[in-house]
């Protein structure tokens, strides 16, 4: 039941953070204990989006072996969920921290993998967390591959761009499959007219199925989400929005994967 989900993509800007955060809140609102990690050390964003003013400790500190995981997690259950619990591990957004993380050597990355792998025992077993959601950096790089290896399931987010779809296909064949990871693909920001008629929708689904991509769901491009500029937490602020409805369906599908 308890699982670690890595949210990944080939290209940047596909909507990983938006999906990770809203998925985490949706699971918490179902009464589950959820832990969300920002593992995008090149471009940390969760702290700005959640407007948490002063995170004292960072996921960086945990991976550096300086602090225990319990010290790093910030409890947002009271402010950001209706039921359940939401603990968040933030990536340090300071330029100095980003520079430091990008200069880590292979030995450090190996130790970081060990620490991510040990989350399974410390969080899922000892702290009774039901879901760990890892929001990763795009593409093939250490922090994201470490997250993928540590996860039970990879949710890969792709846009409609051909370079994105081809890159995603390669990652499924040459990365996720090699690590024997279950993979679910979410097509995000799909043009509304692609999804408007049943015929178009089936045609698109067929194309994606022909390419053997494990499509979990397709999310249309919503201008109102873009317009909010990341200031609204849709799962809480707009629970009746079609985006939230689709994501709720995704949450249920992911449970069955």
């Amino acid at each position, binding site marked *: 039941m308890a699982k670690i989900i890595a949210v990944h993509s080939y290209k940047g800007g596909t909507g990983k953070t938006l999906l990770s955060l809203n998925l985490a809140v949706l699971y918490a609102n179902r009464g589950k204990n959820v832990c969300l990690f920002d593992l995008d050390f090149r471009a940390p964003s969760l702290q700005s989006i959640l407007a948490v003013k002063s995170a004292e400790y960072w996921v960086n500190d945990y991976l550096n072996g300086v602090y*225990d995981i319990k*010290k790093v997690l910030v409890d947002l259950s009271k402010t950001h969920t209706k039921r359940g619990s939401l603990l968040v591990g933030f990536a340090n957004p300071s330029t100095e921290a980003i520079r430091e993380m990008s200069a880590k050597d*292979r030995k450090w*990355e190996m*130790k970081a993998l*060990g620490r991510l792998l040990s989350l399974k025992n410390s969080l899922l077993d000892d702290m009774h967390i039901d879901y760990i959601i890892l929001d990763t950096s795009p593409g093939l790089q*250490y922090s994201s*591959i470490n997250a993928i290896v540590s996860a039970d399931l990879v949710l890969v987010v792709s846009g409609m761009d051909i370079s994105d779809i081809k890159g995603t296909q390669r990652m499924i064949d040459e990365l996720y499959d090699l*690590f*024997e990871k279950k993979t679910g693909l979410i097509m995000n920001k799909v043009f509304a007219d692609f999804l408007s008629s049943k015929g178009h929708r089936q045609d698109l689904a067929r194309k994606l199925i022909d390419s053997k991509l494990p499509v979990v769901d397709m999310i249309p491009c919503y201008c109102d989400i873009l317009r909010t500029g990341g200031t609204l937490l849709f799962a809480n602020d707009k629970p009746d929005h079609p985006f939230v409805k689709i994501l709720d369906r995704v949450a249920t599908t992911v449970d069955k994967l």
Partner: protein
Amino acid sequence: MTVRKLEGTQTRLLQKIKESLDRLNDKMEVIIELQKHSSPVNPDIPDVLDVMTLLSLPDHLRKTAITLCKLEQATAEEVAEQTKRARAVESSYLNQLVMMGYLKKERRGRKAYFYVDKEEVNKTWQKS
């Protein structure tokens, strides 16, 4: 009383010989693996088992290596339980990984333990 003492000494001596033979056996296993793969270990390959190395390993060794990363330290039998492969198979793969410089092997009593990095096994937090 003297006879009993003598028997006790003999038992201890035999136990020591047995342990020495076990250690010798471990070393022989590594030598056999080295001979099987006669090409010398490439000194350019860094001995760090990070994700990029995991990706470059052949499928059968990757499975063993990832399992050991998850267990932190384990015997061939414990790895075999996870991978559902035979203990002898895992023992061979683990020894190959030792030979390649990615794993370390340590004998404790009669059991041989494999691990990735000593510091990881005895993990301590500097502050908490």
